[in-house]
């Protein structure tokens, strides 16, 4: 695959690494018992610890630790038995302690990897450097008053997992696939709600460009992107910006950039000289975090089937292609829906590919059109299963099934009900079909002559006429066979 992008003078390769910040799914904060509920009124979920009152001390939330370990297992990563919380010191109005409690030298999770799957059936591993736990900051509100900034500490102290990748990503699409995959894993594990709009999942993107085969170039970091679309846009813009500078003989300054979502452009926030010296040191208020193999084992055994395992299972059990299986397992909703559908009738196992197609094309497009998702689909897995069974047993044709599913969608009725009510059963009676064909042949004598004279294309016309007469219910294969038989007899 050619991943290079063309500049004015040269071809360039992007080198991309992501730092994903995923909010841990947990009822309370990382070091306090305050609630983490999104959208509550400002400063309504702030404990004495979150507000950094004098003499207040952090106490680790064990559940958040378990969630991080779970996630580490899901990322095929090494879980560290010993990790340390450090203080990252800097001043900001929404950082009440004057430091963020994070993990620096000794993160809770070490090296791992995730796999992304391409449409052409190939796949690629993206290596994970580490995952560590840290506190989120509060929020500065600059738009409430013309001359004042207000601070909302509801988010202050909420647990985040920072997942750092190696610079293994080479295209904006890969970046998108990587973050989708991480999101999917987190949601399967139920360790993050994956809601990018609410900021539960956001990413900093490190990007540089180089001529193929060269050393890594100087990178810039684009901060705080909260949608896959913006991530791709920002990477594209930033890569072009860097290429233009390099091709005109300039050099890249190692900057931290911000992405403007309305202009689609990046702009520098601070350069290397202005970078903070965070003065990391172990937080003396907290003991090192020690997790035994036994505890890790316990957490491991509680982990549900993950997308890659499920994907392999689907390929193995249902003989699906790698790509189909990866689409099905891209999120838990879809794989759950698929499982429920295919298990609703023992027959369906033999028609897995049809099940996949019906979910990922017909159903998805209906859901999309109506702004719904699988969780609130009017068509239940059982009902979809029933519909597919009707197709596979030749009770209705695929074409008619498309109308049926729309009816199911809007009325909530079952496939069986609709087919019965409307009499949509496929005509499979040989005699009945033969009668219709005789009619068509009789009514179109001229055309028959032309056909017999060698105008093969007219076969379609006869099929169409016959279908019309049966209101589309004739079994297409039988119709074809009998039609050919009869026409050939005339010869």
């Amino acid at each position: 695959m050619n991943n290079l992008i063309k500049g004015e003078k040269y071809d360039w390769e992007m080198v991309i690494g992501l730092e994903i910040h995923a909010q841990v799914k947990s009822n309370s904060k990382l070091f306090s018992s305050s609630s983490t509920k999104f959208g509550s009124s400002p400063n309504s979920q702030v404990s004495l610890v979150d507000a950094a009152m004098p003499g207040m001390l952090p106490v680790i939330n064990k559940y958040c630790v378990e969630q991080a370990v779970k996630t580490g297992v899901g990322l095929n990563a090494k879980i560290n038995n010993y990790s340390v919380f450090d203080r990252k010191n800097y001043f900001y109005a929404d950082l009440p302690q004057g430091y963020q409690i994070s993990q620096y030298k000794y993160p809770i999770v070490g090296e791992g990897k995730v796999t992304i799957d391409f449409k052409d059936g190939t796949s690629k591993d993206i290596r994970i450097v580490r995952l560590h736990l840290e506190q989120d900051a509060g929020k500065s509100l600059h738009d409430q008053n013309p001359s004042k900034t207000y601070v909302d500490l509801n988010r202050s102290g909420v647990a985040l997992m920072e997942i750092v990748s190696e610079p293994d990503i080479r295209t904006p699409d890969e970046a998108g696939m990587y973050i989708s995959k991480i999101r999917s894993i987190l949601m399967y594990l139920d360790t993050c709600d994956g809601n990018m709009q609410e900021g539960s999942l956001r990413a900093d993107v490190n990007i540089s460009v180089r001529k193929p085969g060269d050393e890594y170039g100087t990178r810039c970091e684009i901060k705080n992107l909260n949608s896959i679309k913006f991530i791709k846009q920002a990477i594209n813009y930033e890569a072009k910006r860097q290429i233009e500078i390099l091709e005109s003989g300039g050099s890249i300054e190692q900057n931290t950039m911000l992405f403007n979502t309305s202009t689609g452009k990046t702009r520098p926030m601070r350069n290397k000289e202005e970078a903070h010296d965070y003065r990391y040191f172990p937080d003396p208020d907290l003991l090192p975090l020690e997790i035994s193999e036994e505890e890790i084992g316990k957490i491991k055994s509680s982990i549900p089937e993950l997308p890659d395992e499920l994907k392999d299972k689907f390929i193995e059990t249902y003989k699906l292609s790698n790509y189909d299986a990866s689409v099905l397992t891209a999120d838990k909703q879809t794989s759950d829906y698929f499982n429920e559908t295919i298990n609703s009738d023992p027959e369906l196992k033999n028609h897995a590919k049809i099940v996949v197609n019906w979910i990922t094309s017909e159903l998805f497009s209906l859901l999309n059109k109506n702004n719904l998702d699988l969780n609130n689909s009017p068509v239940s897995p059982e009902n979809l299963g029933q519909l597919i069974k009707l197709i596979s047993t030749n009770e209705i044709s695929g074409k008619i099934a498309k109308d049926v599913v729309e009816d199911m969608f809007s009325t909530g009725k079952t496939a069986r009900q609709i087919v019965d009510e409307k009499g949509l059963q496929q005509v499979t009676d040989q005699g009945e079909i033969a009668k219709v064909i005789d009619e068509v042949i009789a009514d179109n004598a001229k055309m028959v002559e032309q056909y017999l004279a060698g105008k093969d294309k007219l076969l379609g016309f006869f099929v169409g006429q016959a279908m019309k007469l049966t209101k589309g219910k004739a079994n297409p294969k039988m119709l074809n066979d009998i039609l050919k038989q009869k026409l050939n007899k005339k010869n």
Partner: protein
Amino acid sequence: MPKSSLKQTLKDLDTKKISIRELNQDYLKRIKENENLNVFIHFSEDNVLKQIDNLENDNSAKKLKGIPIAIKDLFCTKSMPTTAASKILENFNPTYESFVTQKLLDEGSIFVGKTNLDEFAMGSATNTSFFGNTVNPLSKENEPLAPGGSSGGSAAAVAADLCLGATGTDTGGSIRQPASFCGVVGIKPTYGLCSRWGIAAFASSLDQAGIFSHNVEDASILLQSIAGFDQRDSTSAKVDIPNYFENLDDDLNGKTVGIPKEYSIDGTPMEISEIWEDAIKVLEKKGVKIKNISLPHTKYALPTYYIIAPAEASSNLARYDGVKYGFRSEEIDSLDEMYENTRAQGFGREVKRRILIGTYVLSAGYYDAYYLKAQKVRKLIADDFNKAFKECDFIVTPTAPSAAFPLNEKQNDPIKMYLNDVFTVPASLAGLPGISIPFGKDKNNLPLGIQILGKHFDEQQVFNAAVSLERSYE
């Protein structure tokens, strides 16, 4: 007038020889007579009277019911402001009660006031307070003396008999050194014995609450009241707290005392060496085996301490930024200016000095050479003690290198001031319990202190040795 002990007062209250009101009015009177000592940052007679009223209507039995206690103004208290002796917290009223003070309230004690200290507990003379110096009650009329620090207000409160006990905190000697200067008993227990929850932090890995009292028995009663596990402090220890007072045993026959040679320091006044030798002789007479021990890394303790403590302080004090509570400068045009002016105007010189030192030693490029190395040395110092305690049951040293010095003597020489902690800092770095008891006087008739150090969580042995020495000295 002879000072009444906590133990005796509890008996007198129990037998109704004296009422809670009579007792506390006696103390209120003395507090008002001694205002010139500047012992309290916050004192309100009304508040004390209110507490007396409440206790008079309370029929439950409580261990310290009606006992007047002074609280170092580093402990957050609901009923009184908490300043840490800093302008930056000048009008701060906590909505919460520290673990230690809550325990004392639960036992029925009366808080007479919040005592003065060095700003954020940084100092050895109670002369860096935003609220002015505390004067040592033992001062001669024309020569005011320092009470030591940082818990100088609490030590002075006990010495002047303004309370029957006081809380302190000790980071590098802030209980033991002022106890020595004021001629009272001061105990810093093992790190982790008393929860730090609700104590404004100076250096988290060293800060430990403790007690000042008139004698060792009283200290043993009070320490038991404030000790105990607290799940809100991750460094709080889950250990059983013995009844120190009931278990007091001054029979030291067969025990071994360690005498560290490294604590004989050139330039230590003769009187200090003499009381140390006296203490050893007394112990020997009681059948204690004398064992000369070595704590080879002692000489690195002070520099190690003055890297670790400021490093932690520089981070702990970052929360005082003018955003959420406390003092905020009026002159602010930007966020950075708010920080700069608030902190420039809100902190005193010594606090700023330590924030700068701490920031420096944690900076990129210096971290390994200073902070990381200091942590390694700290481990060596702790190992020295662990080794020594294989050969002895407790260690005896002088508490401080001098008696109380004149108030303004070391004001402008921080290094000299830091040397005050030379005997107390090593045990702080190792997290060990230590007590200072009055033992002998210098040529000016000022009290000197002997320090007894014990194994981790072996406060009982420390108390036993202390009470034994105390009784033989009396």
